[in-house]
């Protein structure tokens, strides 16, 4: 360890060109090397990047994968998504605690292990799952948790764990991936998983003018696959028309919506298609620089993706004069996230790419006008970019053959929960929920969450509804729940998630989600009153209306859609005050302090 923290920071800063917008990468490097970002590291980072220290601290404290306290050499992050818990995450967590001798949020005395909960890591189809540093461990049980700790204690290398359990299918076994992750591609379709020859779509695109390329994407009626459904061609038009000396294309691979994992499968099996789409996007809007913003949880795919990028550079499909087209230069770098769901929101993603806290930005200006470093920027989802490549390869008509009137083409679904065949499905837009449930083997489903926590909870009477932008709009997450699941527990879990992931910038989201959870918990504890339903609805409406970005505008959806579709559940859990005593008043809790002070015991044993 000849190098001091200060020396290390100076060296890495220099490698990053002392470019302020690479501050997140510097912080990641410090975290990786020292297992935390110490106060002295922050001082050094501020000095060598020329930023106020308070901004360094602000950044470090924002991202879940950065820590300002020492962490163990191995950090085990167990996913606490609803699906993980349904599949036994609590038992796995207990086994980890027992084997390690620490609780969650703690580090072992020898500095070897830290144990943490983390939101969905994109493995809901093979839950419960955990990250061991960058290594993914799936389908965990209490037995496998104990075995993992044993292996780590003997060897200290998370990679050994994977070797013990075996690699997953497809490219998960690639030398640069070596993951125990499974693709679970249950229904491959012709668009995303059809045969692909790298460069073919691109050469067709390059034979056209950029304006013609955009026209084709518009003709195909392609809309964003991340969930918002904005017309892709229009976004490109705006970016192309905006004034600026430079333009950027960003691929949003920050798939963080709990229950979603289809982009992970694309990144593993179809990276060429995605990068081809990105290159076409760059040609269409006139960008020379692109960024793949990869969520930290998918860091295990980074080396593989770098390798694919390098291969395309060698083939002349990236770099200068791409595919022989004079003057068309474009290259891509990968930017890793650091654990923040909100960065999936495009303006927050841009903040993060600029080396800042992942706070969303005000709109206007829109990213297409003033995006990354104030240059016109198009941000497109992984799946959207794959569709782009297919549209250029086979024509817009081929693409829009399937789908519904306002939702052309196919959609990838990530299906998980109480079903026989969880995994990735390519389905035509417009498919009914009932059909989806039949495909995945979930005939006894009682509730389905479409679009993840920010989407909608649909009950049996809604299974005739269709998955498409005009009805059940979704980025692709479909979580299935059978009749044994408690809807209010699910709502509670979703609110936990939003509270954990809110950036805290605006009042309604920072405070309102906490208040909604308080009332849901009160109802779950049997202390709810009928008036709580109106209270919740008004609160939810305020958060939805007043929040600054998509996170807060959708975080009340679990409450609102269950109030609509599962009203009976709420009604059965609240009680009218009868004898003048309000059920909301917890007498026992109110007396705890006084009893502790006086040493009195409860006069009546509760229950």
């Amino acid at each position, binding site marked *: 360890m000849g190098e001091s923290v200060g020396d290390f920071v100076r060296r890495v800063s220099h490698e990053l060109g002392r470019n302020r917008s690479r501050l997140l990468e510097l912080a990641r490097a410090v975290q990786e090397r020292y297992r935390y970002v110490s106060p002295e590291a922050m001082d050094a980072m501020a000095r060598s990047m020329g930023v106020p*220290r*308070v901004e360094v601290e602000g950044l470090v404290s924002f991202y879940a994968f950065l820590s300002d306290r020492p962490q163990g050499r191995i950090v085990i992050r167990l996913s606490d998504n609803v699906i993980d818990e349904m599949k036994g995450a609590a038992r796995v967590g207990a086994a980890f605690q027992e084997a390690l001798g620490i609780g969650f949020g703690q580090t072992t005395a020898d500095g070897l292990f830290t144990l943490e909960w983390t939101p969905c890591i994109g493995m809901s189809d093979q839950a419960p799952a955990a990250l061991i540093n960058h290594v993914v461990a799936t389908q965990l049980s209490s037995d496998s948790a104990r075995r993992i700790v044993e292996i780590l204690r003997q060897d200290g290398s998370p990679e050994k764990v994977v070797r013990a359990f075996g690699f997953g299918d497809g490219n998960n076994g690639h030398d640069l991936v070596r993951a125990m992750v499974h693709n679970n591609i249950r229904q491959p379709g012709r668009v995303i998983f059809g045969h692909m020859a790298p460069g073919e779509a691109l050469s067709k695109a390059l034979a056209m003018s950029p304006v013609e390329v955009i026209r084709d994407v518009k003709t195909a009626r392609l809309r964003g696959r991340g969930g918002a459904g904005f017309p892709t061609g229009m976004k490109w038009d705006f970016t192309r028309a905006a004034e600026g000396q430079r333009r950027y294309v960003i691929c949003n691979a920050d798939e963080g919506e709990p229950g979603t994992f289809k982009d992970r499968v694309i990144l593993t099996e179809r990276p060429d298609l995605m990068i081809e789409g990105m290159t076409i996007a760059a040609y269409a809007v006139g960008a020379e620089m692109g960024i793949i913003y990869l969520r930290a949880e998918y860091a295990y795919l980074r080396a593989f993706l770098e390798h694919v990028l390098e291969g395309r550079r060698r083939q002349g499909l990236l770099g200068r004069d791409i595919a022989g087209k004079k003057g068309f230069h474009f290259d891509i770098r990968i930017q890793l996230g650091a654990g923040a769901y909100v960065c999936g929101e495009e303006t927050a993603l841009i903040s993060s790419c600029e080396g800042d806290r992942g706070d969303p930005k005000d709109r206007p200006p829109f990213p297409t006008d003033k995006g990354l470093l104030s240059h016109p920027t198009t941000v497109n989802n992984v799946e959207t970019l794959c569709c782009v490549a297919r549209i250029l390869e086979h024509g817009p008509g081929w693409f829009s053959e399937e789908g519904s009137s306002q939702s052309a083409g196919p959609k990838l679904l990530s299906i998980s929960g109480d079903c026989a065949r969880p995994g990735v499905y390519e389905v035509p837009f417009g498919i009914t929920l009932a059909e989806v449930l039949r495909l995945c083997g979930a005939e006894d489903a009682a509730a389905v969450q479409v679009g993840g926590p920010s989407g909608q909870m649909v009950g049996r009477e809604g299974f005739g509804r269709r998955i498409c932008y005009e009805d059940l709009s979704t980025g692709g997450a479909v979580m299935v729940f059978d009749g044994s699941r408690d809807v209010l527990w699910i709502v509670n879990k979703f609110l936990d998630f939003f509270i954990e992931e809110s950036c805290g910038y605006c009042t309604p989201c920072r405070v309102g989600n906490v208040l909604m959870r308080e009332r849901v918990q009160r109802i779950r504890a049997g202390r709810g009153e009928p008036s709580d339903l109106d209270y919740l609805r008004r609160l939810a409406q305020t958060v939805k209306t007043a929040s600054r970005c998509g996170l807060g505008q959708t975080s009340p959806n679990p409450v609102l859609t269950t109030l609509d579709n599962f009203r009976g559940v709420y009604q059965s859990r609240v009680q009218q005050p009868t004898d003048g005593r309000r059920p909301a008043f917890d007498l026992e809790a109110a007396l705890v302090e006084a009893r502790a002070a006086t040493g009195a015991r409860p006069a009546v044993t509760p229950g």
Partner: protein
Amino acid sequence: MNNTINLVVDGRPIQGRPGQSILEAAQAAGIWIPRLCYSKGLVPHGSCRLCTVYVNGRPQSACTQPVAEGMFVEANSQRLLELRRDLVEMLLIDGNHFCMFCEKSGSCELQALAYRFGITAPRYPYLWPQRELDASHPDIFIDRNRCILCARCVRASRDVDGKHVFGFYGRGPGKRVAVNAHVRLADTDAAVTDKALEVCPVGALVPKHQGFTVPIGQRPFDQRPIGSDTQPEKAPKTR
């Protein structure tokens, strides 16, 4: 070149200039839109959301939304009053606010808004967060219990004082105002004359060595409700 932008606010045609926000244009026309994080002369922040208005039916923050020709703005309707009440009540329970012994009482914009909106007691449960105090600086005291995370100090220090004394730590409900040093304000170059102190709308940043120099009862909002300079208060609506 025509430099006037025509828009309608609460049924009244008004004029704005290019680049002006809805909040500023309304203000110039004598229409007061409640606000907290907005402070004249600072870059708008759009975080408190009190100035939320409906622009052609869509909610937007009036401090960040530029005026545009033909806009229809709903700025002070009953439903927006209800929304703003909710937001002020959220801020009141998000921190630990004890007006009765706060130096800022009567000059506090949060308190003044609560009064103007007819809030007597919050309907929401108190969250009683744990917040750090910082009395390390010889002339300035930070009481994070009273901080509403409006970022006025952050912006004023950065853009007016040219110091970057303040920033933010953490996220979500754990977000706190941070200082440009390891923990202590005393280790920054903050000065009691900084604009950052002057713009604090609540009692989170207060000068030391002085207290109650203006007696309670004679402070600005003891005299007239907040916003009266622009638009006198209508009869208070209570629930």
